[in-house]
């Protein structure tokens, strides 16, 4: 590999420059998609776990209908706040 790199760089400058740019661009795109996918998967997994835990707790300690509605309202407002904060704007609704 060392010989290939040093040979190409000293022999064909234009091919070498295009090779360097291409390698960097492809690496950057691959890493970007990799991290994006990984973080999405982690977020989805943790959200699933949280919802699962909430369901477990609710099954163990059943709430009255009015308590459940209040909790749902609280969750709705929380989600709405989070989405607005993420978007950095006030015109985004859940």
């Amino acid at each position, binding site marked *: *590999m*060392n010989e290939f*790199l*040093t040979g190409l*760089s*000293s022999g064909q*400058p*234009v091919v*070498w*420059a295009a*090779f*360097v*740019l291409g*390698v*960097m*661009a492809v*690496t*950057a*795109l691959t*890493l*970007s998609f*990799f*991290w*994006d996918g990984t*973080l999405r998967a982690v977020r989805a997994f943790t959200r699933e776990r949280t919802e699962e835990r909430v369901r477990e707790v609710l099954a163990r300690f059943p709430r009255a209908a009015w308590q459940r509605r209040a909790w749902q309202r609280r969750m709705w407002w*929380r989600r709405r*706040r*989070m989405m607005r*904060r*993420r*978007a*950095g704007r006030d015109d985004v609704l859940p």
Partner: protein
Amino acid sequence: MYFPNADVVIHPALPVLLGVIVGMLGGFFGVGGGFLITGGLLVFGVPPVYAVGTGLTLVMGTAIINTLKHRSLGNVDFKLGGLMVTGTIPAIFLAEWVNATLEAAGIAGPVIRYVYVGFLASLGLFLLFDYWRTHIRTHQGEEDVTTVGLTQRIRTLRIPPHWVGIPRVGGVSTYVSLPVSGIERISVFVPVGIGFGIGFIAGLLGAGGGFILMPVLIYVLGIPTTIAIGTDLFQIIITGSVGSFAYALSDRVDPLLAVLMLSAASIGSQLGARATQRVDPSRIRFMYGLLIITGAVAVALEEMSQAVPGADALSTVASVVLLGSGGGMCIVLLVMMARSRERRRGGGH
């Protein structure tokens, strides 16, 4: 680990650490971080010619990752970036010609370095002054800046020709709207002119230009801080590509070193870009001002090391100052993100 093109042996942990710092600061401030990379590589023992070329190549790579990340957060105005690029590319070549002329006259090195120090110092001081005036003294909003009057005048500039005739299409207006940046109507000559100016200064100083463009977008065009960061990164992809192609042509790039650092930078980028959503825009500008002033101090030390005989150690001090401030800023960022997370959790219940 041996890097064949630069012909140097470095412990891989060092470029990895530098890559994380550069990626994080790049994602947070919207800069390429060329000055930080070059300083760090010089400390690690990479020959200066390869340090600059590899740095520019890494700037291009991190800019791609950061732009994609900011795009997913809705922070990139591609229309504005595209307009500026049309002015930037010819300006880079013009600056190269001016540079060559200055070099032929034998005054390129000192002149450029003095201009660089003056420019960085005044920019950093202005950013700190703006933070003090809008945030501490008058307690204005997070996006308020001291240059509102200038912004309004720039946005309402009427520059002829107002129409351009294109065969078979007819008259096309030279005014555009940039909804992502919150600009209803602006002459295309304004962003093209800004791109030209930034490209010229960047080419003259031998930098990517991101460190100037971000404040210009905020204080001259009045664009929200997060959008300015994303758009600035998009612009850096172009300037970085042109620069790294030129350096690679003359075999002054080590791709293995660049790819290793890019892999580490991609981790930092995720954190840096996410941090822009958690930290107040006014604080981002304040921290950016501090980083710019540190950059000015480092360049001044570098100049002194060359001007004063027997003061070679100052060059190493400059690189250590840069790396230390970059690392310190990353730690501060992580702490701010953790605090913001705690606050959100506390507010949710």
